[in-house]
Structures are given as C-alpha cells and as structure tokens.
C-alpha cells in the first residue's frame, strides 16, 4: 500500500523536453538515484554495526579479543558460550548473577505494564468518550508529563522515597515507572478509542449494557491490538530504564535490574569485557524481539478489517 503511494508520489520519469543529454534534471536524477542507495546502506551500517559487534564479541574470550581486536568474526576454536554462563550464573557459583537481574527487571517491567494499563484504560476511555469539565486541561497535563524530563524528578523522588522507606524496594520503582508511562499510555489508547465508532458502543448501551459493561464487552475487545502494542511499549520503557534504578537500588545488589547491573559491572575492571558483552546481549535481546513482534502486531491490527467492513 505504502509502496504504490510512494511510487505515485515521486515520479521518476522526467518530461521529454528539448534539453540535452546532460540536462540538470537528468544529472540530478542520476546522482540522487545513486545517493539514495549510498544513504540507505550507510545508515544500515551505522545503525547495525554496534549490534553486530556486541553479538560477535559476546562469543569470544577476553584473551582472544586482546590478542586480535581488529578481527570481528570468531574462529571456530575460540567460539565459546562460557561468557553467557559466567554472566548468568549466580554469584555463589562464581558468575555475575544476571539471572537474578533478569528476574528483577522482568518483575518490575511486568508489574509496570499491568498497573499502567489498569490505570490507563479507563482513563483513555474517559478522555476519548466522556464529556466533563476539565477534559482539555487533563490532556494538557498528560502531554506535559510526557515531555517532562526525568532528571528533574530525581532529587525529590530520591529524597521522598528515602523518607518513606520505599527506596530500595522494587515496588517504589514500579510506582515511578507507572507515573511516567501512564500519561503516554492514555494518549496512545485515546487515539485508538477515537477510531472506534461511538455508534458501536451506543448500540450496546441501547441493549441495556451499563458503562462498565460497554467498556468491558465492547470497547476493550476491539482495542486488544492497541492494548497489546501499548503494553509492549511500556514494558520496553520499564525494562530499559536506568536513572531511577540507579538512584533507588544501587546499594542492594540482589535487587539490581539488568540495566543497573550492566552499568555497575562495566565500571569495575574485574569482569571481562566479553562477558559483559554477553550481558549486553541478554539486556538487549528481549527488547529487540518484542520490538519486531509488536511491529507485526501493529500492522496486522484491527484497522485493516475495520476500514473494509
């Protein structure tokens, strides 16, 4: 669909004018035609090289890297999985304990998704469907929260959570992540609810369904793809987050998240670089998988059927 539109939008054929072989138009078209591929390939290389480097180094020993830092591909005999074993194994077994960090990150991210959605779904429904005084102000507030830089919250939340005794608790971190993601969740879901015709809900209301009944039996099932995409988005934010994990959990190694663990161990000289590369892969892989998964999910969403039906 997009391909045909793009072709129609940028016609290649120059008009058959009386200009010569080396008219400005032809030269430009030629040059840009080549330049386009240079840009695409250059961008791909620039974008993907660090990821390839990460994966390739994670399968080597530090000694083999130090011996030959210029070689990217590991040879057959130096290929090793010991880096992954080292990074994942618990500290008691001589590893770096990333398995615990994965559990912590997973718990925090999943709880954030659950709470954020539980708050955002009724909120998005209210903002998109119900008329009440202050609706516009609420939308402005959420936009402001979305733009709001985390560093400005660092001081008061650090102090406040210390005083409340919540600092060092994973639950405290979840609360902060929910507050930071719920606004953008409401915004994303609101846009989706706006595309669902109100008439569908009105029909259900005519049949005697209450407001919560309509939300539960009509609006929510229709919004499942949007909810899933939003959930994945929130999961990625919570999984990737660094600043508040650092501020809240740094003193307590068993509670470190993967991001925090990698950043702390990267500063020490005791852990071999290639082992930490394996840790980087462990940290990055779930996000990349979810990202490509959710792209397909978004594309195969309900919208296509709704337009045709």
């Amino acid at each position, binding site marked *: 669909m*997009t*391909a*045909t*539109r*793009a*072709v129609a*939008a*940028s016609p290649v054929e120059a*008009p058959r004018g009386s200009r010569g072989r080396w008219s400005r*138009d032809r030269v430009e*078209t030629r040059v840009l035609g080549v*330049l386009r*591929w240079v840009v*695409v390939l250059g*961008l791909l290389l*620039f*974008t*993907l090289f*660090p*990821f390839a480097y*990460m994966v390739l180094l994670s399968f080597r020993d530090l000694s083999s890297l*130090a011996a030959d*830092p*210029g070689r*990217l591909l590991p040879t057959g005999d130096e290929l090793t999985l010991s880096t992954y074993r080292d990074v994942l194994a618990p500290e008691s077994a001589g590893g770096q304990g990333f398995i615990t960090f994965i559990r912590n990150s997973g718990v925090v991210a999943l709880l954030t998704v659950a709470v954020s959605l539980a*708050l*955002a779904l*009724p*909120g998005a429904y209210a903002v998109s469907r*119900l*008329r*009440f005084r202050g*609706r516009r102000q*609420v939308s402005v507030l959420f936009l402001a*929260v979305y733009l709001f*830089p985390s*560093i*400005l*919250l*660092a*001081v*008061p939340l650090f*102090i*406040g959570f210390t005083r409340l005794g919540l600092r060092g608790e994973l639950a405290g971190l979840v609360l902060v992540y929910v*507050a930071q993601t*719920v*606004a953008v969740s409401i915004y994303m879901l609101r846009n989706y609810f706006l595309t669902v015709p109100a008439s569908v809900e009105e029909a259900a209301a005519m049949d005697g369904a209450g407001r919560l009944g309509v939300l539960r039996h009509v609006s929510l099932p229709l919004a499942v793809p949007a909810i899933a995409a939003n959930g994945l988005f929130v999961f990625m934010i919570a999984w*990737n987050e*660094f600043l508040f994990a650092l*501020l809240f959990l740094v003193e307590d190694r068993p509670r470190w998240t*993967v*991001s925090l663990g*990698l950043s702390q161990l*990267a500063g020490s000289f005791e852990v071999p670089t290639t082992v930490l590369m394996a840790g980087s*892969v462990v*940290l*990055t892989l779930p*996000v990349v998988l979810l*990202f*490509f998964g959710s792209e397909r999910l978004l594309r195969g969403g309900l919208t296509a059927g709704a337009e045709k039906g």
Partner: protein
Amino acid sequence: MSARRAPGAQDAAGPVRRRGGLERAEARAGLAFLSPTLLVVLAVIVLPVLWTVVMAFQDIRLVTLATSGLVGEATLDNVREVLTSDGFWGALGTTLTYSVLGTASAVGLGLAGALALRRGFRGRGLVRGALLLPYVAPVVAATFVWGVMLNPQLGIVNHWGTTLLGWDEPIAFLSQRTSDVSVLGATVPVPTALLTVVAFEMWRSFPFALLFLTARLEAVPGVLEEAALVDGATPTQRFRHVLLPQLLPTIGVLALLRFIWTFTSFDEIYLLTGGGAGTEVLSVRVFDYLVSRGDVGAASAQALVLALVLVVLVAVYLRTGHHEEEEQ
C-alpha cells in the same frame, strides 16, 4: 445551563433535565475513571516538582535529612552556590552545544533517511524496522558497546584507525578533552569527547526523526510534486520548493521535542563519560550535587536552573516560530 429554564417551558424541561442528569453522570464517570491516574501523576510528578522548588531554597543535606523538617528557613545560598560555582557556565555552554548539535544531526540524518527510503523497494519495511533499533535498545547496553568500540586498546575503531587510516596513535574518544587536528596547515583543537557523545546522540535519536518524517512524507499529496514536475522542476528544485515547505512545520516540532529531551538527557553522557573530559552537562551536575556531595538543596537549585533555562529557550523558540508563520 438547563437549570435556568423559563417556567413556561415545562414540556421541554423533561427531556432536557434528563439530559442534564446524563451529562452529570457522564462527568462523574469521567472523573472517576481518571482519578486513579490523576492521583498517581499528582503524587509522583506534580507534587515532587513543586517540592523541588521549595528545596532549592533550603539548606538540606543528605546527612541531615532524617532530622530536618519538611520546610525550614528559606535561603538563597543554594542558587548562589550553583550560579557562582566553578564550571556552571561552562556546563551550560556544553549543554547548549550538545543539545544543538545532537538535535541538528539527529534531525538531519533522519530526514536523509526518510527521503532515501521514500520510494518502495523489496525489504523496505525490514530496513525501516532495523533503523529504529538504536532508539529502542537499552541505553546501558548501547553505551557499553560504544565504549568498547571506541576503547583505545580493545576497540575496533582505534584498531582500524591505526592500521588502515594511518593514525599515529589510538584516540581516547571518551576521555580526551581536545585533540589537535591540522586543517590547511593550521592546528585546530577539536573537543573530542564532546563530539563523540554528540555522535552517540545522533546514532540513538535519528530513528525518532526518521519515524516522524516518514509519516509526514507519506501524507504529502502526490499532485503537488506532479505539478512541479510538469512545470519542469528538477528533483532538487522539487525538494526545495515543494517538499521542504510541506515538511518544515513537522521539522520544527521534531526539533523542539528533540531539543527538550537532549537538553535534559542524563543517561547517555553519564554512562559514556561520567561527565568528564569536557562533557559535563547540567543534568550530570544535578546528579553529582545529589549523590556525590549529598547537597540536596544545591541539587534542587541546579535542577530548577536547568528547568528555567529550558523554559526560556522553548519560549523564545515558540515565539520566533510564531512570527515566521505570521509573515507567511
């Protein structure tokens, strides 16, 4: 509104009053549905921000935190300390340079990518997806890999630089403040570490610009360019006079968003350089005041100054943007 009906309108009052009741019920439901969210946002974002303003004018330190009251005597010491301390103005300049260069390069690269990917080809969807990876990847993993790549001993960049490009010695990209580069016989000091973090910022944020501009490009009506084509406009002329005017408002919003986020970003620089080698930005100073020095008041004051500078810059930007619109 419906309460002020004339007494004569009895017949009409029935349904009207019922609608008023429905409206009230709707308003109640709306607030009920939103109240948990509003409560969380109020407690974790709005109130803490207000509290920062209060703390900026108090003498609070981490060590005295447990004993000090919530609100003590007001003082201007923190603000004075922040504004007159060594390195504040330098950090402000670094922050500005970093955000302007980071924003411009990310938006520029995103625009180039969006234009290059405009015409369809097999596998374009996959390429677009792959180009978004730096934006979704965890910042800690990305900075770590960059750190190793640029490492003077183990890194591949320095290895290739010294073996293939003929560098005399490895460059410590992330810990060297300046390096001398000779341009046309003159030696010019180049801020190595600062440019490196800008390059990282470009790598990490250009996908956002790409996404934004791709969506806008797809909405540009094809007839405009066709008309220009019929008039004999060359590709660059079509870009300059047809496409670019269509894109400019989007580029403006995009640049504003990126600037706000880059100006206040902490993770990237903290993880890459720790704020050393001439890359100390204001957000890193906030963190240092809080964690390294335990000076809560000064950290709050620094955060406040950061926010105020940002607000002023954004206001100026919006102002000038408005004028341009009026002139057109």
